[in-house]
């Protein structure tokens, strides 16, 4: 019988790395008090156990999950791994232990605290990625579609399929500023790569025209007699507004010109200067 041990697992942050933590937990018959990335683990006083990523071990765990828990459980934990849930690794480990004990029925144990917490986290992820499918805005730069987002969860893997099916003949780039990652696509392949900084050139005339047309449409479609900003805020929380064209500043040519000449855009501290910096 495994019990909670006073130690912390430290892994490289990859899904394979995490699976090795699961392997270790079974092999040593222990449950760590937390599973952390190296920089987060250093500051704590508990003894740290470094878990190296070993693909062989990872694959053994990976192969056992669909066999013992079913394929839905596997895609469930893959999704759970993308969420912003605090201590998600520990929750997934507990979920897997529960699953190896009860089998596929674990997916139905909705009132179990671990299952419930993970369920909620995955729902949050689903909802956020669904919203970004609509709220993401592209600018067209040199015939490439470029968009920026600041999601709480790591939604890029979930957006990849949607946007590749939507724009199969386009080239596009979605920059996740919170996670420092980017989804790049060209016909017919996509990849998720680390991107720290991305500077998007100023909008050309055509781009600017369509932004203004969209703003005009947005302002016109609302019915004055039904004005209801609270309802809008509930359905589209403010954190999504930052990069949305309809909330961007009035046209650039009406603003004082930025003094910088090296094609650097207005700095992002002026909130409405340009939504596409």
């Amino acid at each position: 019988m495994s019990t909670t041990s006073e130690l912390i697992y430290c892994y490289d942050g990859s899904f394979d790395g995490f699976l090795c933590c699961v392997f270790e937990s079974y092999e040593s018959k222990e449950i760590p008090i937390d599973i952390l990335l190296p920089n987060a683990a250093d500051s704590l006083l508990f003894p740290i156990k470094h878990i190296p990523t070993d693909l062989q071990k990872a694959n053994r765990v990976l192969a056992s999950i669909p066999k013992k828990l079913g394929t839905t459980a596997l895609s469930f934990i893959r999704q759970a791994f993308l969420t912003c849930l605090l201590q998600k690794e520990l929750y997934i480990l507990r979920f897997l232990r529960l699953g190896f004990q009860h089998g596929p029925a674990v997916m139905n144990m909705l009132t179990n605290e671990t299952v419930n917490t993970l369920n909620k986290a995955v729902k949050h992820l689903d909802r956020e990625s669904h919203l970004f499918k609509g709220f993401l805005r592209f600018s067209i730069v040199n015939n490439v579609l470029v968009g920026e987002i600041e999601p709480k969860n790591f939604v890029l893997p979930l957006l990849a399929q949607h946007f590749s099916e939507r724009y199969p003949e386009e080239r596009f780039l979605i920059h996740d500023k919170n996670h420092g990652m980017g989804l790049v696509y060209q016909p017919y392949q996509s990849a998720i790569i680390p991107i720290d900084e991305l500077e998007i050139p100023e909008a050309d005339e055509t781009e600017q025209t369509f932004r203004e047309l969209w703003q005009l449409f947005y302002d016109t479609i609302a019915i004055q007699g039904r004005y209801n900003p609270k309802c809008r805020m509930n359905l589209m929380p403010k954190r999504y507004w930052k990069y949305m064209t309809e909330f961007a500043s009035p046209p650039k040519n009406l603003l004082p010109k930025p003094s910088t000449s090296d094609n650097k855009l207005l700095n992002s501290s002026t909130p409405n200067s340009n939504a596409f910096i």
Partner: protein
Amino acid sequence: MDVFDKLKILTDAAKYDVACTSSGVDKKAAAGGIGSASASGICHSFSADGRCISLLKVLLTNICSYDCKYCVNRSSNDTPRAFFTPRELAELTMNFYRRNYIEGLFLSSGVLKNPDYTCEQMIEVLRILREEYRFSGYIHAKAIPGADSVLIERLGMLADRMSVNIELPSQNSLHLLAPDKSKHSIFNPMGFIQNRIQENSHDLVTYRSAPKFVPAGQSTQMIIGATPDTDYQILNLTEGLYRKYKLKRVFFSAYIPVAENSLLPTLDTQPPLWREHRLYQADWLLRFYGFAANELLDQQHQNFNPYLDPKCHWALNHMDFFPVDVNRAPYRDLLRIPGVGVTSAKRILTARRISALTFNGLKSLGVVLKRAQYFITCSGKTAPDITLSPSTMLRSLLSEKTRELYHFGFSSSHCEQLSLFDQPQQLSWQQEDLGKCLPLLN
């Protein structure tokens, strides 16, 4: 006139149409094309009135030869007129679509020259999008009443969803306010579309690659509060439409005064938003909760209680149905419990297969115990510390907003709106119906 002016005029003219959903069909771009659709629909923004913006909703033109009294685009109205050329509109749509502003196009139009001509122009927009741009995003097209069925057929082969607006919920009202339209001119195209959808589903069984006719089904909308029709009439009509014409959605639109006319509510009337809200709640009950229209309202009670949602109201008047035991009751009974929705009812079914549910467990499934606790038992036990007195029950069933309204009194908006038709018996429900519950509040 540049494209900015046109867009402004034609958006302004289209904004009173409520339907802006992009749901009902799943598809991805064909090779060499652009555009996809998701069955759940995707909202791309929300306007300042809190309504979803999913499609580029514009009229092809607001020039109209009809003179419907309730409509901003009526021929007698002095308002700027404009029209898009089909190519112009197709280009605008594609440019918005590439930037992910929209999910597709919602195209409606005033009747330019005659219904057939108008319909041909709309077909041209859709043809450019589908054939030249190879666009497979969502397109919702309005069937123009009175257009030839060959044209409706052609439009339907290009669009994902079609709608014919009923606008006014009874023939009397229609006759009074939209003299150019008749019940016949509305139900004819609706029936035609329904028949073609059915035929098409047979074709699809035979040939998998048969071209699809209106794959996302058809919808309609009705204006609420412009005429004296009661909620009971409206809900019955709605139910009939779902049954007979297999509509995907019926939308309700609170009447916003746009015209001064002795037959219409005065210009300063507030739109009956609460009434619209209650009707939508009832519409959900019809579509997903297995309720029938005559369970919610009847001859004696023709309008919804403004303070309580229709489901709570039904529950309070059918206390003999409760308590429902969450560990035994079938799905259709679970759905009748206030505070239990479609999602939580399904979760109850899943979770109780593993172990018996407790009140705490229900909470984690997303059941709103505040409301549900009075109507359920868990394996025979009632919730701890509850008093089953009508006043406490009512207090927790009222939403915060309605409680406020109760204390400050409802703005008698819908009374005013109906006053022109002077049918006092319709208004008496307020005293009579609330008499059942409201004294208990004090």
